């Protein structure tokens, strides 16, 4: 019933980063796209982080992370161009990368990054979604959005064009912060107030918290892949040991 879906989630405690990707495209092409994105970051980020930790001043973490996301984009794009089954595949991505007392947040599409601080959940990323645009421009109300069929139209994704623009955001970390990276499969089904409650109540057992989130999305009839990564900042002063990451992902198909 539950499967670890490492194609779509990475949490690297040693190097201090977490990634969630949610692929799109038929005939398993979406899974190929998300796996290329995740593999690129899993393999290449540690090298860049090592160089940065060794004292290299340039590039900055958000710069090399953006560059690697660009590489993943080109890799997906060229794979899609070379395989008829993969035509039009793409993936959303959310990346959380810790450096010193800060974290770089990068995302494309509608995978999200949230932060729980002092019991308050806050969404830190802005979805590249047509529905979000329409709610913001007042075309439809937020209540109507809940029942909209068009909730999954993303306006940007990785792998569709040779160039892609990444949203980048820097965060100052505080001890005790809990970061949630998730695919739309979670936030479609579970209300933010329930996510906040579960994270706040179960933050001392991240694996159980992740299980609860996925289980609740499932109980509400989740039909999409649900990928979740949780990262808790223990102590920002000690970069290497100050990070606890657990990942769990649930795949339904």
């Amino acid at each position, binding site marked *: 019933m539950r499967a670890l879906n490492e194609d779509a989630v990475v949490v690297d405690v040693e190097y201090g980063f977490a990634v969630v990707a949610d692929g*799109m495209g038929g005939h398993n092409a979406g899974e190929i796209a998300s796996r290329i994105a995740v593999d690129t970051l899993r393999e290449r980020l540690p090298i860049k982080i090592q160089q940065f930790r060794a004292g290299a001043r340039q590039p900055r973490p958000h710069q090399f992370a953006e560059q690697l996301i660009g590489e993943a984009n080109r890799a997906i794009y060229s794979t899609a161009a070379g395989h008829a089954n993969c035509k039009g595949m793409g993936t959303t991505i959310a990346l959380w990368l810790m450096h010193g007392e800060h974290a770089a947040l990068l995302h494309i599409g*509608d995978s999200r990054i949230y932060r729980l601080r002092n019991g308050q959940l806050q969404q830190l990323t802005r979805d590249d*979604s047509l529905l979000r645009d329409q709610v913001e421009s007042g075309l439809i109300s937020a209540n109507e959005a809940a029942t909209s069929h068009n909730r999954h139209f993303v306006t940007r994704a990785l792998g569709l064009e040779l160039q892609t623009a990444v949203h980048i955001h820097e965060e100052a970390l505080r001890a005790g912060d809990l970061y949630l990276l998730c695919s739309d499969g979670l936030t479609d089904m579970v209300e*933010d107030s329930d996510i906040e409650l579960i994270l706040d109540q179960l933050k001392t057992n991240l694996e159980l918290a992740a299980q609860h989130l996925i289980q609740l999305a499932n109980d509400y009839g989740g039909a999409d892949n649900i990928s979740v990564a949780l990262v808790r900042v223990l102590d920002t002063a000690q970069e290497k040991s100050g990070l606890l990451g657990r990942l769990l992902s649930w795949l339904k198909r």
Partner: protein
Amino acid sequence: MAKLVLSLNGTVINQFFTDKPNLCIGQAADNDIVINDPLVGEHCAHIVGIGEDHILESLEGDYGILVNGKACFRQILQHRDIIHLGAYHLRYLNSRVSSELNMDRTMLIEALPLEAQAGKAITSLPSARPNKMYFPEGYVQIQKGRGHHLPGENVALDRVVTTFGTPGEQLVVLTRRPQKIYLTHVEGPQMPRVNQKSIGREPVALQDGDLIEAASHRLEFHLGRPPTKR
């Protein structure tokens, strides 16, 4: 189930699913499919679903509506038909006819302005969770405990999770799920006990009347709403 893909000059703008018996098309904002083109009437047409089929009916004008370039007043739509609406095209795709039709709802919309609006508050889209999902009700009667609950008090389990104990030391969680309410150990050296038997790390489904000993609490679990206080 069918879908209608709206495009302008070959660029997909939106898609609509025919899960309402009647889809209205026109320039006015109260239509299901709003076409922002001065050549399109306020409420120019509607699509009526009958079984697996869909009928397009013109509602305004003396010339009908163009389908695949031909004027008509009422027509059963065929897979891949194109309805012309001013400069816009609305393509009808029926999933019954076409198994390759992608009903995956996560898809990309291209050719839209993609500028990030820095500084604006982030709009959180509401979830689509159905309200009718039945989660059982339950409560626990505190027989012994510390913290903010007093012995004798009934605590309703009205949220998806309710914890007892002290985070960082000893903690258990009661979780509402569609059929039952479960008890799970969260952390701490002592495993919780149900009816004097120690439970493992796996969640345990609770029965009415179960006695829970966990995290310095003794709790009696009951299904239903807590009795009202006198």
